């Protein structure tokens, strides 16, 4: 039985349709990559699963599923006097050293203020925050949007490691097709409508990608050994 099942999901902001007839499902332990141009409804999809967006259609989570959410960015003002420890305790009351360790941050980070962190460190703290709740389904909105190349690789490796350890299902939004080929079991191409869904090697054909992003841009599939 799938951990998440979505049927005919529609969402709109006012008159504007943001998601139209999205249907897919996700098995426990699977990684689904969501790709699509800017404004194609990727974030809205995650927020609909989270219950933050009004929608029609069905979003069925298998019973007892806990969701973890890693937002693309968090509108924290840099001068906000909140420490990493205090931020993590907002999720679970226990002292969160374990969660910090899981994202490869030293315990000394607990006393730093959120505003002092680099964007890569903040990203890790947000991931730590999400995994404190022991999620079965982790939603990641462009987890590497503000991280440099070297950092990007480690964030994905980290997510992959967490997934292996906790057998969690992962939905990640990514602009990077290399990441999709490397880490995703399934891919969902979104451009308000569902352009494609399936195994990346099968569905990410040049025609589909052209349909998704428009024009006849060329996409290269970098093979990895």
């Amino acid at each position: 039985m799938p951990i998440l099942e979505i049927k005919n999901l529609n969402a709109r902001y006012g008159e504007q349709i943001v998601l139209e007839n999205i249907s897919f499902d996700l098995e426990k332990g699977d990684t689904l990559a969501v790709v699509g141009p800017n404004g194609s409804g990727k974030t809205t999809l995650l927020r609909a699963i989270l219950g933050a967006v009004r929608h029609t259609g069905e979003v069925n989570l298998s019973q007892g599923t806990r969701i973890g959410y890693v937002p693309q960015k968090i509108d924290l003002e840099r001068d906000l006097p909140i420490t990493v420890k205090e931020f993590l305790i907002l999720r679970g009351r226990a002292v969160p050293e374990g969660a910090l360790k899981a994202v490869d941050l030293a315990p000394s980070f607990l006393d730093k203020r959120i505003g002092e962190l680099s964007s890569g460190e903040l990203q890790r703290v947000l991931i730590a925050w999400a995994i404190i709740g022991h999620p079965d389904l982790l939603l990641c909105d462009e987890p590497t949007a503000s991280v440099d190349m070297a950092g990007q690789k480690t964030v994905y490796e980290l997510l992959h490691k967490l997934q292996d350890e906790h057998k969690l299902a992962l939905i990640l939004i990514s602009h990077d097709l290399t990441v999709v080929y490397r880490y995703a079991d399934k891919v969902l191409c979104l451009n308000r409508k569902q352009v494609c869904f399936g195994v990346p090697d099968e569905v990410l054909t040049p025609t589909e990608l052209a349909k998704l992003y428009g024009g006849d841009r060329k996409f290269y599939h970098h093979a990895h050994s």
Partner: protein
Amino acid sequence: MLIPELQIFIAGSLIAAAGGMLGSFALLRRMALVGDALSHVALPGIALGILLNFNLFLGAGVFLVLGTLGIWAVEHKTKLPVDTLVGVFFTLALAIGALITPEEEILDALFGDITQISQLDFWLAAIGSLVIMALLLFFARRFTLSLISPDLALSAGFRPHLLELAFLLIFALTVAVGIKFVGALLMGSLIIIPAATSRNIARSMNQYITLSAILGILGAILGILISRFYGFSPGPAFVLFAGSLFFISIFFRR
């Protein structure tokens, strides 16, 4: 019974502590001006209280709760930013309040005067402030999270919409309690200034919230003292003192 002199200090301190503490949460999400606006929403209630001779706290309270519910409902219906709505509500209320407040009372309504509080007012202010602080502490985790990021709050199983309403209602209660002290025009300062000062120096949430309350108390006591000696109204004296502290704190920004 407490001597009136002491009552004024106690009521002022408790009101300012509650205002400061509330402000530390409000400033998590740029809600600083909500306090300003809500205090104007209270004005018609105060005016009606004066005209029809019932307790001003009650009049202000009723209008505040209605105003808050209105703002919250319209916000979720239209997705307009809170401050836009609040801006509209508050000028409307100010206009109505100004039209119906008797002329000789208008200064008190606008600038407050804690030295004229009655026995009933004292107990209302004291108990009200304590309730506000207790509620804020009880909901501290949930409020902080919903104000910082509603989506994260949702993912943690909280209900950010309802928490936001609860916060606005506590906000309204704070305004109702504080309006006697600093009046409608300066009410915002009671909430914003101590918290803004504290934010400049605090290194953690705990420090931030505690210090906001302490700065409020300090401002209230000194404000009332200044007003004693120089015959100012205590409300403006509080704002002058708290405002000076804010400017000093800028130099100690982390």
